[in-house]
């Protein structure tokens, strides 16, 4: 008799613990717009509308919970099989709703945000733009998804970054680099994410941060700065020596132009879990291990 009472209590305790555990999944997050979002259970059907967020979700081990991604998400391999539902300016509202997602991840400047929210979808707007942003986003996603891989992920990235930071010899450190984002020419300055990585590996950026993260430069500025190394995307660069004054540029004379392939550029411009790989690409470039391609 006493034993049965005891077992009854034990059952109740177990039940309480279970429901308690269920309730503890309810998390309230404040996203990068300052909007508050409450998730009562870890989301199982996620749509990601930003490549860096897609990559972070997968790095946290929740790749199989993604049901759709944006058109530019292409890593890891698994997300290429998912339906692509547009991007920041052309998100396909109807396709997204038809997938019945329980969480939509998007950049704060995504045009469809208001429309998606007015249709009753839960939207977490995150805008990773810098190294610090990436840390914060990992923490927020870890909480939102109910995963626990965040700290380990950050530790891994930190360790790899630290290794990349010591890869350059003291002679190579301080190499003056010009990183062109697009051929207008827009450059990545010290305050951009790319600039942060350059600083981390020990290179010197010829474009100061005071100009803003991605300033449009006067071509003369680059000729005057005379960088030792030019980093550029294979997608946008034409014949560099044909640019006025560029044929005399030290980087061109010494053949130190790195033309990153589209896949390498993706790694370099996304503030995501592959940033250490991006740092290693920069190191490889400065050490002359990236082919110059046509020049």
């Amino acid at each position: 008799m006493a034993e049965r009472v005891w077992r009854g209590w034990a059952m109740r305790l177990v039940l309480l613990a279970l429901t308690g555990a269920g309730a503890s999944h309810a998390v309230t997050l404040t996203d990068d717009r300052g909007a508050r979002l409450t998730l009562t259970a870890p989301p199982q059907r996620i749509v990601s509308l930003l490549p860096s967020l897609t990559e972070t979700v997968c790095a946290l081990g929740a790749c199989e919970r993604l049901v759709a991604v944006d058109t530019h998400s292409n890593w890891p391999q698994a997300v290429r099989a998912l339906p692509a539902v547009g991007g920041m300016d052309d998100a396909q509202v109807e396709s997204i709703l038809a997938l019945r997602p329980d969480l939509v991840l998007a950049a704060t400047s995504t045009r469809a945000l208001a429309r998606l929210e007015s249709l009753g979808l839960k939207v977490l707007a995150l805008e990773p733009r810098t190294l610090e942003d990436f840390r914060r986003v990992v923490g927020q996603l870890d909480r939102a998804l109910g995963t626990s891989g965040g700290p380990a992920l950050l530790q891994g990235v930190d360790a790899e970054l630290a290794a990349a930071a010591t890869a350059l010899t003291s002679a190579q450190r301080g190499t003056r680099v010009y990183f062109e984002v697009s051929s207008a020419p827009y450059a990545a300055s010290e305050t951009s994410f790319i600039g942060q990585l350059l600083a981390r590996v020990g290179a010197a950026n010829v474009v100061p941060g005071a100009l803003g993260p991605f300033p449009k430069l006067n071509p003369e500025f680059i000729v005057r700065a005379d960088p030792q190394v030019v980093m550029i995307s294979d997608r946008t660069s034409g014949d560099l020596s044909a640019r006025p004054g560029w044929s005399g540029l030290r980087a061109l004379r010494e053949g130190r132009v790195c033309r990153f392939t589209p896949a390498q550029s993706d790694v370099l411009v996304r503030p995501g879990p592959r940033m250490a790989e991006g740092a290693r690409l920069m190191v490889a470039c400065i050490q002359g291990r990236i082919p110059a391609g046509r020049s």
Partner: protein
Amino acid sequence: MSARGTVTAALALTVASLLLVMLGLCVGSAGWEPLTFAHESASAIVWEIRLPRTLGAWLAGALLALAGAVAQGLFRNPLADPYLLGSATGASLGVAVFLVGLGLWPGLAVGWALRWGMTGAAFVGAMGAVLITVALARGVQHTLRLLLAGVIVGMVLGALAALVMFHVPEVMRALQSFMLGTTAFIGWEAVHLMALGLALTGLVAWGLGRNLDALSLGESTAASLGVALGPVRMALVVTLALATGIAVAQVGLIAFIGLVAPHLVRSFARPTHRGLLPLSAATGGVLLLSADVIARWALAPQELPVGALTAVLGGGYLLWLMHRRSW
């Protein structure tokens, strides 16, 4: 003859509108996909996405075409279009400034501002541009001066918008998509707003229809016919600016509809302005809605930018019309 043409045109446009609305409900992200109401998300897709989008595209087209017909009547110029008084570049500048603000204070994109931020900025920009134009022309007494001021304001505000884009390249992508125009994000609120706007501006314009007829005979003739030129012009400018601003705020800069719709109407009927204004509006609605359906359908599941489509289709049709009638 003309009256019969007008009635036929009105009937044809009504039937075309109804058919296109049905079509709009059946064409979605996967192309031709008429949904049965078997489960909840299907009915949400039809009622919350396809229907408002379809109606919204029609309404936006109608507003632009109405504005175009008013502009062509007011300026007695067949090349006049709704963006004549600088509202297009004004709206671009408004959106550019808003996007830069969004980058500086991401908190802007929450709640009220999230819902009305971009549309509000575009509307304020469009109306502001027209106000500057009217101020520069020192009122609306001289149509030519108004026209020139509109061109100047359009140029300068466009340059300012380009300058903003130059300095803050992050907004370039979003701004370009606004300039192309899209019907993809129209919800019920936008539909209600545009319906109200169309009713209001349509009624005012229709009420001023006789005055537009008189104006088409020349300003001195109109004055001798008893048209109070000043107030009528002001009312027409306000109508034009409101109709354009409301449409542009919701769908961005859709090209060509406002210019081409009145010409289309004149190609199959020769109505007075009381007939031309509603027929133009209906034609604009049919045009933009067809473009919207094609934009959804042609490359499904991808979408074409509807603004690019209207420019290509509208331009092609106008060219054909021009050659046929040998103007």
